[in-house]
């Protein structure tokens, strides 16, 4: 009996010994994923995330709001874009905001920390450009946003929301810091594969950074004129002195395949994955403008249907299919699986410079860069410019407003290529170009425009829900409103009001 007891005690103590062993329980490390990765992998992730949002979310809605494109009448995917009924919980608002903060800019933040720790100043410049690029759009579309306390994880679960002008100030400083760094020790080979914009060419990044500086300065020109004028003057002088270079090529992501989940994000979502490829149609605002000016870029932007480049009047999606079926009548935008996503085109770079000179009063320089820009746009689209620069697109010799309009209208057309409508939308809010049609409410749904319509003037959507005023910006996403206690004051606002609000630089 005693022997048995001993055995029992032995067994129990063995088990308890086993139990108290922490090693036995220390198995909670995830074998499926790494807990750290090298910086260049994050760089690609960051660029790709911003690219996705820029093209397939913001670009898409921007091209509706810029009236490059319109919603087909035999399908319904983007009705809410064209009727301006965007709210805090609209998918595109939530998704794009989350992708920017949780994926793109957040990965970029880790990238920046890593390269800064290694004194890899070339990498730092890339990260600074990406951060400035992303945050400028966030301010332009969302107004006041978290910046100083963003990306701090559990340290700051409720980041403070910074004013838009402060964010502008911060990204401008960051950009200048990045551009001022000594990049001589940069090893481009490390980024040849993973830098999917310039393949590790740090000079290109610097040039892009300078052009982005210009974009940031121009955006705030009206609200912060003294500062902007001084900085622009300096920048252009540096450029003339060849101390710095501005973007002289396309800043584009071209790393796509014609394969499921690997292609251009706009093509992937709208063409490959959506259940019909017919949602996007040409908008009459743009087609009328291109046709009136006999602009050959129309053939690069739209697919001819039944021998015509008809475009739809914005908000014609409810015209019964018995009247006409848009897919058999209305031109469609040309989207391909491997088309590039342009973060900034060379054309835009030149047009930015043109506006700068114009603002500084040098019309001659403005004209030169305007013509460079327009030519670059035609070249990129593979279109013949002919004698348009001497005719319809000649730079006006006088009148600041006419000259500004000429520049911005060209940006508007240029941005129709590949879904960059968000940029031309923001520029429209800033400058008022393209202008709004004075006869919006006389125009009928469909594709026929009245004779007194001025081609290229914006038509308030026939299904507009914003009381005749074109939308300006996005409502705040529910996820930020609901989960950030600092967003309380923004939560109280109505989406319909927010969408018509002006961001800080719009006076």
């Amino acid at each position, binding site marked *: 009996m005693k022997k048995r007891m001993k055995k029992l005690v032995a067994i129990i103590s063995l088990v308890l010994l086993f139990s108290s062993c922490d090693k036995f*329980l220390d198995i*909670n490390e995830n074998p499926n994923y790494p807990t750290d990765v090298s910086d260049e992998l994050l760089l690609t992730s960051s660029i*790709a995330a911003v690219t996705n949002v820029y093209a397939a979310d913001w670009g898409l809605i921007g091209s509706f709001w810029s009236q490059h494109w319109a919603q087909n009448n035999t399908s319904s995917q983007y009705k809410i874009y064209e009727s301006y009924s965007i709210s805090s919980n609209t998918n595109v608002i939530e998704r794009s905001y*989350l992708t920017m903060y949780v994926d793109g800019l957040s990965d970029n933040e880790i990238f920046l920390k890593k390269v800064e720790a290694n004194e890899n100043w070339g990498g730092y410049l890339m990260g600074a450009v990406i951060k400035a690029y992303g945050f400028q759009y966030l301010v332009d579309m969302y107004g006041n946003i978290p910046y100083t306390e*963003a990306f701090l994880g559990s340290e700051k679960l409720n980041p403070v929301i910074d004013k838009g002008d402060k964010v502008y100030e911060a990204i401008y400083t960051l950009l200048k810091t990045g551009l001022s760094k000594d990049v001589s020790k940069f090893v481009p080979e490390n980024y040849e594969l993973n830098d999917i914009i310039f393949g590790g060419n740090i000079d290109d990044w610097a040039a892009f950074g300078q052009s982005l500086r210009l974009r940031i300065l121009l955006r705030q020109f009206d609200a912060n004129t003294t500062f902007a004028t001084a900085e622009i003057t300096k920048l252009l002088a540096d450029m003339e002195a060849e101390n710095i270079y501005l973007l002289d090529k396309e800043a584009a992501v071209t790393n796509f395949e014609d394969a499921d989940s690997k292609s251009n994000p706009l093509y992937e979502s709208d063409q490959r994955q*959506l259940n019909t490829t017919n949602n996007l149609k040409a908008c009459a605002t743009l087609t009328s403008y291109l046709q009136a000016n006999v602009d050959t870029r129309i053939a690069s932007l739209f697919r001819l249907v039944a021998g015509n480049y008809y475009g739809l009047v914005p908000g014609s999606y409810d015209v019964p299919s018995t009247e006409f079926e848009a897919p058999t009548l209305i031109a469609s935008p040309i989207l391909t699986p491997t088309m590039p996503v342009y973060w900034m085109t060379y054309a835009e770079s030149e047009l930015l410079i043109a506006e700068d000179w114009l603002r500084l009063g040098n019309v001659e320089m403005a004209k030169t860069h305007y013509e460079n820009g327009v030519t670059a746009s035609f070249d990129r689209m593979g279109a013949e410019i002919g004698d348009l620069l001497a005719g319809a697109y000649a730079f006006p010799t006088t009148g600041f407003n006419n000259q500004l309009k000429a520049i911005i209208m060209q940006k508007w057309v240029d941005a129709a290529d590949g879904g960059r409508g968000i940029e031309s939308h923001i520029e429209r809010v800033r400058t008022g170009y393209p202008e709004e049609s004075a006869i919006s409410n006389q125009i009928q749904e469909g594709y026929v425009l009245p004779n007194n319509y001025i081609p290229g003037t914006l038509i308030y959507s026939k299904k507009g829900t914003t009381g005749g005023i074109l939308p300006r910006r996005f409502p705040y996403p529910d996820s930020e409103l609901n*989960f950030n206690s600092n967003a309380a004051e923004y939560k109280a606002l109505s989406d319909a009001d927010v969408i018509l609000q002006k961001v800080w630089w719009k006076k």
Partner: protein
Amino acid sequence: MAQTRVLTGTVSSSEDGLPIPGVSVSVKGTTTGTISNMDGVYSITVSESARTLVFSFVGMVTQEIPITSSTKIDVVLNPIVIGVDEVVVTAMGIKRDKKALGYSVSEFKAEDFGNVGNDDATKALQGKVSGVSISAGSGAPGAATRVIVRGLSSITGSNQPLYVVDGVPINNSFNSGNATENSMNANAKVDFGNTASDINPADIETISVLKGAAASNLYGSRAANGVIMITTKRGAKNNDLVVNFSTASAFTEVSRLPYFQQKFGQGWSGTFDSKENGSWGPVMDGKDRLTGYVVDNTQQLAPFSYKKNGIRDVYEYGYSLNNSLALSGGNDFMGWYASATSSKSDGVLPGDVDILDRNTLTFKGNGGTEKTKFSFGATYMNRVQKTIPTGQGDDAGTGAVIYSDILYQPVNHYLPDYRDYKYKFNNLDNYYNGYAQNPYFTLDNTGAKADQNRVMGNLNITQDLLKGLNVSFTGGVDTYSQFSKVHGAIARVTPGSNNSGTINDVAGAVKEEGLYQTQLNSDLVANYKNEVDLFGGNLKYNLLVGNNINQRSFKRVNIVSRGLVVPGYYNVGNISGSAEVYTNEYKRRLIGVFGQLGLEFNDYLFVNLQARNDWSSTLPIGNNSFFYPGATMGFIFTDLLPENKMLSYGKLRVSYAFAGNDAAPFMTSEIYRPSMLRAGGFGGTNYPVNGVPAYEKYRRLGNPNLKPELSKEFEIGTDLRFFSNRLGVDLSYYSKTTTDLIMLANIAASTGYREITSNLGQISNDGIELMVNVTPVKTQNFTWDFIYLYNKANMVLDKLSEELGVSEYLINSAYETEFVAIPGEQLGMYRLPDYKYSPDGKIIVGDNGLPVEGDKILIGSSVPDFNMSFTNNISYKGFKFSFLIDYQQGGLMYSNTADATYWSGNNEQSTTNDRRPWIIPNTITEVKDAEGNVTGYLENTTPVVDNWHEYYSSNTNKPNERTRIIPRTFIKLREVSLSYRLNKSILDRTFLSSANVSFFGRNIFLWTPAKNGFIDPETTTWDNDIEGLFGEFNGAPGVRTYGLKLDLTF
């Protein structure tokens, strides 16, 4: 002529000495019998050969009295003391007298659920256990069963009970998900069932349901959501060979499809259009019309009229066949039991696209000596299931979903007419419907199949060491592997053909998955029992201490290939691009020590003290230990009361116990993963792309401070039996609070993360469970039992962490509908855009006369007000007639099936006002100035004319999406059976020892309120837990079953 004589006497009760009328008096082994009269006096004529008289009466112990030479035999009958002798299986497989328990346990024996031929034992308990909600995801063979005990107590963790078979926990994973995506969303999904549903019902002896923490906490953290304890049949030592054969076959048919309107036909905006996928066309006049497309210069002609069963007839009769053979016996070394069961079913879709084919083999043994006992069991199971996707079509993946597509067919078409999908008018290019694929093409070309092999084994050795002291070891293993393949065909519409441009090409997809799970469990328990005399009474006590070690490992490899090359060939290599490969594995361990002290004083006062401590691998080291005690008391107060006729037995139960629960694996740290970016709304970018790799920081913030969640549960109940057990009332009230709720919570994106697993909330559950048992009639030949169950459960999210600023949690969503957990509300609230109202309460409409979207409002919860069920068992001689009516009142659910029928104008609701122009009542429009400020209101003068579809579409009239939130209320005739057990005297002349035949039906009748003319409200398509409670997205329809079952024992 045998001689006879007359015997007489009086039957009286031992309780009060009074005579008992109506006592059945018979001669043993014959059919001769009589009944005592009003004075308890009987008189019976018996033959000379009669040896024994049998006296029986309801509620009394049957007595057999030998016949002597005396002609007067007076008999005193003793009442049956109810409940005292009932033994139930409790936690850790410990058998205890039911009277000793301080909590409620529901136990079912094979005969309680055996007559209706269910192939899933958990489904067989539907409507029979108070406080437990059981529902089937759909009527498809093998579909998952959702079992929730005492309401939800977790939001992002599991609410599944722990399943324990013969003392060993088994796996209950839900092997389902998106057809060809590696995430959960509304897109095409397949349901491969949940693994606990695969226990062979034919092997089950009893099922015990342990509901509260007091009942289950010895099982540890995994039992926090209750325990379903299954004990299987076993042989006995020195028993003759017994052979049981059982066969059941049944037919199934679709029970509920949406009710369709019969007036308006194909078209849009009131105009006939032969390619439309909705019934928004003109009134059907019955005249012949050209229909569909022109193909080869010809077009078909069909009467423009409502086609009865045009959609229903796509479904056919399904069948199921269950055969089970069990052998048992024993010698003086051990008893043994062996069984083989084959269960086959083919669902209601044509062909063999929806089948379940399950075979199990079991061998068990038990024996040993007086001091050393052993038992073991091993089960092998092979399960093959075929199913087809539910949810939303996924053109980049498996393509169309038949359950969805058939809802978008105008009511003037009879779908079986299009069965030959290769015929020129029916093929993909020319099928009349320009927006939905020919469902017969889908049926033949899209599917899913899972093969599973599973082995479960257990071994127990119990050694007596001293008098009253034994040590017992139980080891168990449950391991399975499952390989599944989901495929969707290439479906290309020829460019330029009729459907080109309106029907998307489906690229075709294959997903292959290999899954492996193993659970190992070890329990070592020492048990000591003794009794002492104390305070002039008797005190029995038992002490138990034990150790539990549990390990679960999981591995899965998914390969998804989208964009197939060779049609009809489904292999992940058959693609032009590269396949996506996903792997996932985890291992988790848990160690527990537990103890229990049971005290029984004089057989009427029972006190139990118990405690357990767990260490879990999923919690941060150093913070991974948690302790949870409990105490229960049972008091049979009738033992202290003066004897009375009315209340024959009364017990009070009180318990208070804690339960702890750990987290899912890997929640404590952060990870990086290959970038997957979503934009545009459909699909996205999955890295690597073009040979360029990219890694992103995963959106979940790790939490190194994670704590276990803890619940406290108080339960009070009573078990009362009246009139010698003719009436029984079992009532429980419980109140449970779960704190430090482990939740995956959203955080602001600006933190750089999207979510964190943290201790965030508190949930309160309380509820009432009532069971009333009545036996209005009980005579020797005729018995009528009636069981009434009532159950009401509240589950309220008390609070969420203020620290994290978490104000709510989004559980699930579809279109505009959100299913959210919000503090202060029942768990699972539906939130939708409201109308926008003017200050005086009128609905604001836009320029198109349709309501404008306002703020979001909560419109109710998924939690039913109450459930009740009525079971009737009527038996007469060998006949038994039973039926069970199940009633659920209240609670809401989301139904996309409803949405589809609104969208397509196919349902009755869409014909409001006969589709004549109308101005939506009580509506006004806003007047705005140039800045967009509202300056006034005008009466709405814009009618809904031919844009009815916009009024009913939740895309253009978002507040109207509330019509898709339908009541969960139902009344179901859940089970009906009529069985006949052959009389022993007949069987005596055969080699059979028992024979029972039963006709049964399940879910025969379903009533739902007018707001749900769409679907069986128990349908779900997401999972069998909280996400699934959201509702259904084009789910498979429920089915009605009729069958015949035969049980023979040799």
